[in-house]
């Protein structure tokens, strides 16, 4: 069997996605197959072709620097879906290890 083309543990870390051993065993070959599939793009000559990020001609869209009251959530509404909130803030687990 060919070695997996993707270091799936590394990519999963970049994506902040914990994977089980069985997921790694399943996704590795599946993603390898998908990469082989997209390899056919190498047949296509794109020398000198500009990259298209967005097909419709619109650029440098600007808006007035004005407050739109209808888009402002109240404090309560903004926190209503929070998994954990405290004193009007989102609460998260610690970010930095405690100093030893």
């Amino acid at each position, binding site marked *: 069997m060919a070695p997996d083309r993707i270091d799936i543990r590394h*990519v999963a870390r970049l994506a902040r996605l914990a994977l089980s051993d069985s997921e790694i065993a399943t996704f590795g070959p599946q993603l390898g*197959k998908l990469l082989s599939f997209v390899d056919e*793009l190498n047949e296509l000559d794109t020398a000198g072709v500009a990259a298209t990020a967005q097909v*419709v001609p*619109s650029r440098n869209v600007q808006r007035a620097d004005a407050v739109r009251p209808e888009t402002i959530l109240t404090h309560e509404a903004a926190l209503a*879906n929070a998994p954990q909130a405290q004193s009007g803030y989102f609460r998260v*687990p610690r970010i930095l290890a405690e100093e030893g």
Partner: protein
Amino acid sequence: MDPIRDSAVAIAAAVNRGETRASAIAAAIIPHAARVDTHVDAYLQLTPDLMRAQAERVDARIAAGERLPLAGVPVAIKDNMCLEGTRTTAGSRILGNFVAPYTATAVQRLLDAGALPIGKTNLDEFAMGSSGENSAFKMTRNPYDLERVPGGSSAGSAAAVGAFAATISLGSDTGGSIREPAAFCNVVGFKPTYGRVSRYGLIAFASSLDQIGPFARSVEDAALVYDAIAGKDPLDATSLDLRSEPTATNLPRDLRGVRVGIVKEFDTAALGESIAGCYHRAYEDLAALGATLVDVSLPTARYGLATYYLIAPAECSSNLARFDGVRYGLRVDGADVGEMYERTRATGFGPEVKRRILIGTYALSSGYYDAYYVKAQKARTRIAEDFSRAFERCDVIASPAASSPAFGFNAKSDPVAMYLMDYYTIPGSLAGLPSLSVPCGAVVPDGGTRAMPMGLQLATPLFTERALLGYAHAYEQATLHAEKLDPVEALR
């Protein structure tokens, strides 16, 4: 007046004339939709209270002398669009308890036009899939054979309209998620030009491709919905600031003088005799309406799938980074914030979403970005250029909407086999084109017993929605294929 089977055009006319009331429409369709949905599972939730309250508002506006283009028309909404105060899940466990704090612009415009929200519909998780089977919550069934899929990702929105459990619905289309399920469920599904309809309040999948559009049981109804939702929205900077003509008026009855392009590289013979025969008849019917059939070439269309399966996952991996357990949605605790992110996303996302996040992250990662992501964006340019050249020779391109009629559950266990369902829809998506699927007959699938609906895809140049809907209307009215099929007996 039949509030279950009538068109949106007929319902709105009757409500505007005072012949019936929006409240009466709501009262008739709510129990019917609830009964049908015990078989179809199109809805993640029905919203009868919201529907009745909106019906009362509409009746009051009509009584005050207003005339509304969608007065009293029941609309189902794909559950990746926000409706204030309702659970909005995108078909994902990670948003299982998310209550939308605001309403999507497209949904708000339908409400303003007098439509009645009947419920939120099931979908492949984050709109990633072609069968509906990737929903974290339930399997929607095809109303024309309950043992087959409705297509995806707008599974419930297509099935609800096909099953007469809604008059119209909203879906979203990234690579075919409106057109393929429309073909499977015997309805019209219309993806406007990218940017025609605001994406504000649509939960993002691939931002350069996502576009909201309608499902309906006629082209005219789809046009009516499109007219209500299209147009610049200051809340979506990518929405187009172009005047759009109304499309639902003076629809043509023939195709005289219209050049219909048939794509040389789309080898329908490979789809099998009965499917190829169905499409050949459709092309002949277009010619019989006065159209001239011309061969056109899209030599790079065959690279569409590979291009799409780099660009869409790349954008998805970026968009879905926001689901981290901090501000909304699921949280699974960990020792520190990093572990919390990883566990939350591991528990909250299903396998297809994880695959796409991984492939997208890989395609964007250091050392691979140019080889995959930039290469795909250049391929996209070439595909769009091919369409531009083809449209020098024709006004509209006709092709299959899907590679087959609806298939059975668990029939496509290989992800790439599932991706191939969108072979015909993806190239037009990459080019941003307006495109739709209109019913074009029925075929008994291999191993099946019932004739299943088929869809003809039509695509036109950027911004030419009015022409596109006109061609589709002429074909539909001359053939009336949708009326020849009935949903399974249990739904009648």
